[in-house]
């Protein structure tokens, strides 16, 4: 199998088009199953009552926010090393979804924090690092938006992404260190008390749904970006004519 064939925009565009409905359907099915488990199967927590159920959104979103940034850095590195335009497109297509999940993680964290800690925002190490991760996503997207030339936007974004990914562990470590030194805020979002088996299942299914959703949305976005960039070429014109 020739992998390079799939790296060509003209091949990738229709292939991605065929894959999108499958991933979208999987995302919907998994989300339905996950939500069912989280709301009806998982038991009520004896300490936190029903409010804890927000972790079924919060934890998968937090996982995805971190993971997507790493995947973006992977594509950026490939793009810089082998000069494959599709890799840059993938990195770029993932960024808004990553930012969205980071935002969701922060938002649900605040919603959960209010009943748990009595405050919307606690300078907990994880929340703080998530906030900085959101800044990194915003910086990446702002840089992409400010550059008109797609070739430069791709490369500049990729470099920033790589600098960011080297920094993420350092930032995380420094924030954690800062957190332990200052207030004794020992409450941590993921140290959920005695997680029941079904809770874990619910979170895993929801995480898978988030995965499938991310792939579907990134493919849709990548298709649009490719068409926009290749609009001068024969095949892109044919596609555009067909869709019009």
């Amino acid at each position, binding site marked *: 199998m020739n992998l390079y064939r799939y790296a060509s925009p003209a091949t990738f565009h229709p292939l991605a088009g065929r894959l999108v409905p499958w991933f979208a359907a999987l995302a919907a099915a998994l989300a339905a199953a996950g939500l069912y488990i989280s709301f009806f199967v998982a038991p009520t927590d004896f300490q936190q009552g029903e409010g804890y159920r927000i972790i079924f959104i919060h934890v998968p979103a937090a996982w995805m926010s971190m993971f997507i940034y790493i995947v973006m850095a992977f594509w950026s590195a490939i793009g810089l090393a082998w000069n494959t335009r599709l890799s840059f497109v993938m990195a770029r297509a993932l960024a808004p979804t990553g930012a969205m999940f980071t935002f969701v993680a922060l938002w649900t964290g605040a919603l959960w924090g209010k009943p748990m800690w009595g405050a919307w925002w606690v300078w907990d190490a994880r929340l703080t690092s998530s906030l900085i991760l959101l800044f990194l996503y915003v910086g990446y997207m702002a840089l992409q938006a400010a550059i008109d*030339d797609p*070739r430069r936007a791709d490369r500049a974004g990729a470099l920033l992404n790589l600098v960011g990914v080297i920094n993420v562990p350092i930032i995380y470590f420094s924030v954690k260190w800062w957190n332990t030194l200052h207030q004794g805020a020992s409450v941590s979002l993921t140290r959920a008390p005695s997680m029941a088996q079904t809770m874990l299942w619910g979170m895993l299914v929801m995480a898978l749904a988030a995965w499938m959703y991310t792939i579907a949305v990134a493919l849709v976005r990548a298709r649009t970006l490719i068409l926009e960039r*290749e609009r001068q070429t024969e095949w892109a014109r044919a596609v555009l004519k067909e869709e019009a």
Partner: protein
Amino acid sequence: MSHPPLLSAQDIACERSEHTLFQALGFELGVGEALLVRGGNGRGKTSLLRILCGLSQPAAGAVHWRGAPLAHVHEQYGREMAYVGHVNGIKDDLTPLENLRLAADLGGRVLDEDAAVAALERLGLGRCLDLPARVLSFGQRRRVALAGLVTAGALLWILDEPLTGLDVHGVALVEGLIRDHVLAGGMAIMTTHQPLSLDGLTPKSVSVGD
């Protein structure tokens, strides 16, 4: 000319925001030869010169200096090539002489001050040696940049519109400069919209974007 070509471009193509400016462009240049790049506005003359300098990468093809790709001989090429672009690359806060001294420092050379003054005087800047470049006219600043070519001692000159902003006298001076350089065994690549007369020297020519 029996010299082997020092600079060669094979099949180079250039793209600017999804547009192909030119493709399959190639030439060879040896010592004692000059090359004139022809083409209308926005056809990629400057882009070609920047590729030949090594400032940007061609979308396809390769440029070789002494048989090696430019990226591999960055340092050697930096010593043997001098570039004067659209903007002059001189600092407004420094005097012409300080500018040349700075360029020499950065190129790892020791500036021969007498030769530098002579070069500036040859280009008609004798009266402005102690003035900051800020107060010089556009044409005078252009002349400072071109005087830098003489003191750089490079083999290959790459000049983007060297004659813009120069008066009749200045044009003649610069034409003489280029001619002397090439006839003395140098090389030059340039673009120009103005007629260029290099007595006793017929430049090769290459066209972009027809």
